[in-house]
């Protein structure tokens, strides 16, 4: 019975695939690949909790797609942070002729050529979160990092009434995501000359280095009115640093890191946070299969930035126990949301 149902499903999907194939196929898709598909997940670094959570959403989505007979295998590589190794691993995926590659890039430029090679071989390439500067992919999926920085800066300026001394906490230098978030804040900061930037830092998106950096900045600056933090772990590190020195809490921006959200509630802060939802991984997997099935998917899927503020934080913390202590509490997702995002042009 079950087998018959899934056979029917496969049949149906193939039909739908053939019908829409005639109309329009997504980029990189040649229509010669048949379900069930092998999906390659080219990860840049699997150790951070954020990445483990992302991998979790991908694995969960693959399980769903397996039930429908659309996917039979998920192969995972981990470049251990090395963009050169990632290129090599993507090349191996091409050599092994996987049907789709989903990718978080370790460098926004380095994988461009190998990704174009994959595309030319008819492999669906879905690039999400950390994007590559090339159009030779089936689709890119991301939130808008510029908008992130802009909204965060505007919220903080608003909190300070347009006047005050602030710290700016950035992710690592030379990384496009961190650069884009920072650039997004520029216009709002320039429009408010009353806001004085005391100091800026660049650290990895980790609590410990951020705490260390902010600790030394606190010694140097007796008066700080607000903190423009462009990463969740950075915000948590800043709060811990201020708490240790007994400094009064100030308005701070951040991201959906569980530790930050809990400190926010614990210290009764006035804060604002957004997120790069971990389920972008699941969405990328879903999109890859949709494209392979012949559906025309948008070249760029812009995922709106979910906002957490003092009115919604409780709803996030209520689900906190479902997420790792050093992980991210992301907004809920389902297939309906995915279909909506893919339908939006």
């Amino acid at each position, binding site marked *: 019975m079950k087998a018959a149902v899934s056979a029917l499903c496969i049949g149906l999907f193939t039909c739908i695939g053939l019908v829409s194939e005639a109309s329009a196929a997504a980029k990189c898709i040649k229509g010669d690949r048949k379900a069930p598909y092998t999906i390659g997940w080219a990860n840049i670094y699997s150790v951070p909790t954020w990445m483990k959570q992302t991998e979790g959403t991908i694995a969960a989505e693959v399980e769903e797609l397996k039930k429908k007979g659309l996917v039979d295998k998920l192969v995972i590589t981990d470049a251990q942070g090395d963009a*050169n190794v990632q*290129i*090599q691993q993507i090349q191996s995926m091409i050599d092994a002729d996987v049907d789709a590659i989903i990718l978080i890039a370790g*460098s926004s430029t380095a994988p461009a050529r190998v990704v174009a090679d994959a595309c030319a071989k008819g492999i669906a390439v879905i690039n999400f979160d950390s994007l590559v500067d090339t159009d030779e992919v089936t689709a890119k999926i991301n939130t808008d990092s510029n908008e992130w920085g802009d909204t965060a800066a505007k919220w903080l300026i608003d909190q300070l009434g347009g006047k005050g001394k602030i710290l700016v906490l950035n992710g690592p*230098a030379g990384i496009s995501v961190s650069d884009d978030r920072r650039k997004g804040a520029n216009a709002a900061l320039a429009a408010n000359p009353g806001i004085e930037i005391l100091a800026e830092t660049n650290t990895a998106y980790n609590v410990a280095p951020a705490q260390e950096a902010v600790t030394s900045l606190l010694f140097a600056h007796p008066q700080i009115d607000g903190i423009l933090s462009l990463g969740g772990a950075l915000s948590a590190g800043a709060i811990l640093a201020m708490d240790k020195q007994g400094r009064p809490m100030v308005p701070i921006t951040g991201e959906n890191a569980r530790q930050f959200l809990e400190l926010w509630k614990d210290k009764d802060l006035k804060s604002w946070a957004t997120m790069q939802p971990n389920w972008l991984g699941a969405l990328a997997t879903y999109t890859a299969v949709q494209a392979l099935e012949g559906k025309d998917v948008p070249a760029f899927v812009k995922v709106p930035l979910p906002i957490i503020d003092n009115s919604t934080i409780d709803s996030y913390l209520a689900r906190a126990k479902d997420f790792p202590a050093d992980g991210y509490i992301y907004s809920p997702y389902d297939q309906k949301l995915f279909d909506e995002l893919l339908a939006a042009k």
Partner: protein
Amino acid sequence: MIRSGDTALYWRAQRERNRGLLGLFAVVAAFLALYAYLFPGLLTVAGISKFAQSWLPLALVAMAQAILMLTGGISLAIGATVSLGAVIAATTMTGYLGVAGGVVAVSAAGLAIGALCGVIAIRLRLPAIIVTLAAAFIIAGLALLILPRPGGAIPGWFSDLLAGNTPAALFILIFIALLWKLYLATPLGLSLYAAGENPVGAYRAGVPVDAARIAAYAISGLLSTLAGLFIAAQTGSGDPVIGQAFTLNSIAAAVLGGVGFLGGRGTMRGAIAGSLLLSVMINVMFFLGFSPVAQYVAQGLIIIGAVALPQITARFRRTR
């Protein structure tokens, strides 16, 4: 040059240098055979080309590190220098300097930075590890100044020439290995091992110890920026932090290849074999379907195994 009467001495030295490397060569050959078995496409021109392209940068930095380690030095600035080479290439080649000008600029930067590090470390008698650590920060900063975020471009035809479907990377490596052989025949090259193994004795014997060491730093810098140039060509663009992982990997490859930390011990062929093992390992583990966690463990075990192998065989030889 080696005179005919010295041939026996030459081969004795070669045999001495090869000792302990045979195990590594066997391991590398086994991995290559396994890779070719798992992925038969390797044994095509395109397959060899692609593999050589992913291997070449690591081979170059392994050589860059090995030449320093042979003189008793070490560099923690290799990764940053690779990044610098990549960003210089990506910012000059599409400008009025053109590809040839870009290659000259990249080479000059590598030689100059390497030589400067060498002069500071050797003439001021400062520990190489400190000098190159400081240099790493400065060079990484320079790379970020030249290209604050990934970007720039390499002319498409140049990328295709070096990293298209031709085994250019393999030929480059063979060419550089031959140059190395020639360098070892020059007075400075000849002094390398002596300067590393017994600097005081070498100095008393009239060997230009300091010059040999500074030249080694300059060549090391050149090899590093050339690795960056190749990566830029391979990727079609520049990234100011692309080289980071190469510092540790260059040391790993050199040590794996039997190059000693104390100078005077090891060979370039060993370092190149070490880098080949590190590179082929990644592909083999992919085709064996190892999970990322298993890859971490396996990688560590293989490295320890390959380093321990010569020790174990040496002990076996002694007790026999």
